[in-house]
């Protein structure tokens, strides 16, 4: 760190000192990690080059296993992207004050991961060179096209939703002059934090946080419908839309929690990510692990009870057959582990949520595996023999590169924007008296009098 930058940082408020430090100071560990992730990403790019050069034959896909790792990753990453926008929007709309230090890191996950999710079906195309046929020859009856529309809309909306609450912080960096003055001058878009601008900012954030909720829900609903609209056993299910939304939010909360634990440690944010945040988000994870179990149970019981032969072949393949290991690992990851850990206050701590978060992410990846593969390899017509699927190293490399590429981009982003919204933290402090009053307003009158009395006493 340069001396003048260090001096500037010293002259700032405590919030700014801590939250802007990652922008100007980079540890050696960061470079090592970035180098490793970069290498994995480049390896994946090389694998994709081979796939484009020689064809999708380089994957392990076949007939009838037409979809594999890429589609699983697609559903998984788009699911993770529900982390940010949806959760931060819900917390903003419901005026949850504890949201202030977590919205930014969550929204950033959304915007960065959605791109990595959206490229998966393109990687999966036999003819990526004809991608734009989707626009030129669009057939609106196809659920795949509904997806193109809703993901496009979601990406646009969540990018704006990330950017708008960033503006006051960008203006602050511009004014402090600690980093790339021209870049931040451009990004801050002339924001001067006048009362008028501040009021407009709040209004826009208010509108956006309502608008993104239906868009976010539509995205994963439509992804569920891609499967549900076909006649395949255990895909053709009416609950797939909401089931996918629940699963997406489940993995999204897990992703936020893991990111928070890592950020807290890497950037010493213990004062911002407090036990209360892990406690509350842990409770949300608990609720969603129960919801996930409820949906899964409802789905499997319905299939089992109806006992149609074609459905049962897929059912048994999952529950006790060839896919029993991924199936029961999924149940452990999505439900048993997070439930056991998040049901207890003492394990709703950073180590506890880290374990639960990783378990849920593995479980949710496996959930998509258990949806895509067992149905694909079991054709409806019972005379046809079941298929097989073993992903090739090309598919696994591209998947690894997707993970590493996302983490790398997220790391780099923390070097350009404060990962916790500085202005919202400050605003929260300023408004805490108003909040106390608001909370008191929920109660019957005598309590208000009590509050007034105390306020007089303070004077």
């Amino acid at each position, binding site marked *: 760190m340069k001396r003048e930058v260090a001096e500037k940082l010293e002259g700032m408020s405590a919030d700014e000192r801590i939250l802007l430090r990652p922008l100007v100071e980079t540890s050696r560990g960061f470079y090592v990690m970035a180098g490793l992730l970069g290498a994995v990403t480049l390896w994946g790019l090389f694998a994709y080059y081979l796939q484009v050069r020689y064809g999708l034959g380089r994957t392990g896909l076949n007939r009838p*296993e037409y979809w594999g790792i890429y589609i699983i990753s697609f559903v998984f990453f788009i699911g993770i992207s529900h982390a940010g926008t949806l959760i931060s929007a819900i917390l903003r709309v419901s005026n949850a004050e504890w949201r202030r230090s977590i919205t930014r890191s969550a929204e950033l996950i959304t915007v960065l991961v959605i791109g990595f999710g959206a490229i998966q079906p393109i990687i999966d195309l036999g003819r990526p060179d004809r991608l734009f046929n989707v626009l030129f020859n669009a057939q609106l009856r196809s659920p795949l096209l509904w997806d193109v529309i809703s993901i496009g809309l979601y990406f646009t909306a969540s990018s704006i939703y990330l950017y708008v609450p960033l503006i006051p912080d960008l203006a602050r960096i511009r004014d402090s002059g600690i980093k790339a003055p021209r870049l931040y001058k451009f990004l801050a878009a002339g924001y001067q934090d006048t009362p008028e601008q501040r009021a407009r900012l709040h209004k826009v954030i208010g509108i956006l946080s309502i608008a993104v909720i239906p868009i976010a829900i539509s995205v994963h609903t439509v992804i569920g419908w891609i499967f549900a609209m076909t006649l395949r056993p255990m895909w053709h299910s009416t609950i797939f839309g909401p089931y996918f939304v629940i699963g997406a939010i489940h993995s999204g909360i897990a992703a936020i929690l893991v990111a928070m634990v890592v950020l807290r440690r890497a950037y010493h944010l213990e004062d911002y990510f407090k036990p209360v945040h892990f406690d509350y988000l842990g409770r949300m994870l608990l609720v969603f692990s129960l919801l996930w179990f409820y949906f899964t149970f409802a789905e499997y019981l319905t299939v089992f009870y109806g006992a149609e032969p074609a459905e049962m072949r897929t059912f048994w393949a999952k529950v006790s057959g060839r896919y029993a290991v991924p199936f029961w690992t999924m149940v452990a990851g999505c439900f048993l582990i997070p439930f056991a850990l998040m049901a207890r206050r003492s394990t709703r701590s950073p180590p506890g949520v880290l374990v639960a978060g990783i378990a849920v992410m593995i479980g949710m990846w496996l959930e998509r595996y258990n949806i895509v593969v067992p149905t694909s390899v079991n054709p409806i017509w019972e005379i046809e023999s079941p298929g097989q699927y073993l992903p090739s190293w090309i598919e696994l490399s591209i998947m690894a590169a997707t993970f590493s590429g996302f983490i790398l981009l997220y790391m780099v982003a923390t070097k350009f924007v404060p990962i916790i919204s500085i202005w919202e933290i400050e605003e929260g402090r300023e408004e805490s008296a108003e909040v106390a009053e608001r909370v008191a307003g929920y109660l019957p009158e005598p309590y208000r009098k009590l509050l007034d009395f105390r306020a007089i006493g303070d004077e």
Partner: protein
Amino acid sequence: MTRWGMVIDLDRCTACGTCEVACKSENNIATVSPEQADMDRTMSWMKVEVEVEGEFPATTMRFYPRPCMQCDNPPCIRVCPVKATYINDEGIVGQIYARCIGCRYCANACPYTVKYFNWYGPEWPESERQHLNPDVSVRPRGVIEKCTFCHHRLQKAREDARAEGRDLREEDYQPACAETCPTGAIVFGDLDNPTHRVAELKEDPRAMRLLEDLGTEPKVYYLASRQ
């Protein structure tokens, strides 16, 4: 209204595989290597599926030659994002190879798994290259292909009939599988034309269609075996 369809008599099928071979050579279907075949990437627009019943030695085998069912209500065409698969006026479900983006959604939507994907570019042994069919376009790598009821034969038969100033006769248009079947198990024609054999055969009490309850309305009928 013409509705091309097929009736396959399972009592007559001996599983000789002539229909598969005829289809492959008629439609320039690529030959995959043994390693690719082991990975379940064989392409066979017409394929004889085998059903084995009972325990050895008291086993019964049934054979189902399976082309595309040419559904009247095809699940594959609804899901295609680029209108690359369609049903024409005469009920034949086609694939536009030059437009297909290779997403394989149609292949997943098809309950009969009769849509085949070109995992690699097409290849043939040198000896076969000599007699590729000039009437059928070769499919590039990365697109879906499927049985077309030898649609190119219909076009040719129509032109011939027009040149000779007469109507199209039943025998003028026969797909390669029906033409070559040595036992006459595969009968082809216009399901809506009472003079064609298929129109009568499809009313046979033994007539059934695969996965009929899905409502896909296949135009390929099977005559169930009597035993």
